[in-house]
């Protein structure tokens, strides 16, 4: 059984433009599979459909066509079973900003059925593992740096021991040191846990370092998904960046219109 099995997955959004409703295709029939324990990275520009893919797999969007299964569970029909297996870290570390890291993690743990004793034991342990200074665990999140907030976001995702970890640009906007720490932690999680990782990024080095296979998502279409050396060979490019440019005709930094503009 695959950890993730996506077949002809489609998602469209409608938005108003000068009194007319227009449809934007965020995902146009994406298919791929991820083996248990594997880490795949999806490269794509802003608006390419990466976040939509992550949101569909985490049951935050409804599928318009095709199917997506997580460990055999259909994301549309067996959403609650999927939710027990999945957690996510996104580019924005979303928290109640006046609440502390410990408080945010504590209630989040309850949502996954962790009792008070297990939470008391696990929260400081996981915060320590992600390199969060425990003396700051009672400080409001708004007083923490973005790097620290992102570490708490990682801790929140790992607190529930997900078998599928969805990372949607987890290091975007972080300073180089925080970025390295977060990447090292992702590698550690892969080494020590039975966790499958789907990483969406536009950091080519990060993709190459962390992932077993790298995919290129362009305007809602998955153009390729293979090990980085194979990808470079396929597009006869010396670097992943050039492979991306050959595949899409554009640089990774160029933006597409927001895929979920609605």
């Amino acid at each position: 059984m695959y950890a993730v099995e996506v077949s002809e997955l489609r998602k469209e959004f409608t938005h108003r433009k000068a009194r007319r409703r227009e449809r934007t295709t965020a995902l146009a029939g994406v298919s791929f599979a991820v083996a248990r324990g594997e880490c795949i990275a999806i490269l794509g520009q802003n608006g390419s459909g990466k976040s939509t893919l992550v949101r569909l797999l985490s049951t935050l969007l409804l599928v318009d066509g095709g199917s997506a299964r997580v460990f055999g569970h259909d994301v549309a029909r067996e959403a609650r079973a999927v939710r027990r297996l999945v957690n996510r870290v996104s580019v924005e570390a979303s928290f109640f900003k006046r609440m502390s890291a410990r408080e945010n993690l504590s209630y989040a743990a309850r949502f996954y059925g962790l009792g008070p004793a297990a939470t008391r034991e696990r929260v400081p342990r996981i915060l320590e593992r992600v390199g969060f200074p425990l003396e700051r665990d009672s400080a409001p999140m708004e007083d923490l740096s973005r790097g620290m907030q992102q570490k708490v976001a990682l801790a929140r995702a790992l607190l529930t021991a997900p078998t599928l970890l969805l990372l949607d640009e987890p290091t975007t906007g972080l300073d180089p040191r925080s970025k390295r720490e977060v990447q090292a932690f992702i590698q550690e999680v892969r080494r020590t846990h039975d966790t499958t990782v789907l990483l969406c990024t536009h950091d080519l080095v990060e993709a190459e370092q962390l992932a077993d296979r790298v995919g290129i998502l362009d305007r809602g279409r998955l153009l390729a998904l293979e090990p980085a050396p194979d990808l470079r060979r396929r597009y006869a490019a010396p670097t992943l960046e050039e492979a991306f440019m050959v595949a899409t005709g554009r640089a990774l930094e160029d933006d597409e219109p927001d895929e979920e503009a609605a």
Partner: protein
Amino acid sequence: MRAVAGGVRLQGIALLGVVERNTYLVKRYGFWELAFFAWTVANTLTIVFIAKGVEATGGQLDVERQTTILLIGAVLWSYLGIVFEIITETVAWERWEGTIEYTFMAPLSRAVHLLGMGLFAVLYGVLRTAALFLVVAIFFGLEMPDANFTAALVLLAVASVSFVGIGMITAVLPLISPEKGAQLGFMAQGFLLVVSGVYYPVSVLPDWMQALSVISPATYALEGIRAAVLDGAGLGAVWGDLWPLLVLGAVAVPVGLATFRAGERYAKRHGKLKRSG
């Protein structure tokens, strides 16, 4: 069987998690809670003074009784405000902070999520309005020697089921529009109380408003609580108010849940849950 027990345990812990989260939020905004309480006391005083004002301008009335009638109306107004505000504003708040995606990704059921907020709202609302009642009653020197507070609390508890159900309905709009949606809670509070005889008997309302009062749980809560506090009516005596509240509660919660779920489906279809990214 074990899977079912595990599922029930998870939902039970998650329910407490929702209560825990809202407790943290109140704690973190403790100063504001005190400020709002002071404002509620001032607001309630302006209403309750009306009885003395009418007497001072030559009106003939039992000031003590009328003051208590107005106080109960003002306290229920405040209670409804807290219940609707907590349920509706928490959803709006979650949308602002972006945490709603993480709540919706978690395996807690929507019923547990919403009922958890409702449970916290009722517990916190009862504490706040009990304090308000006490402060204003002491201020006016109200004695209420015949009051049956147990019956009044039972009525409030049963009415709260309906209020939570209506709160679930009002929580839909901030899910779609966090900027303005939370205002719906205030609108629901106003509409509900104006037809329910908050400071006057329902009989003074126009016929069409009286018809609406029949389906408002606040009508029965106000009538029953006033009978319990002013005349010492027991549960048997207020049964005429209690059974409609039971019926309305049994209808309001499923309707509230269905409405919220429909809103959630709409938001998930159109990508309305995200704040950024």
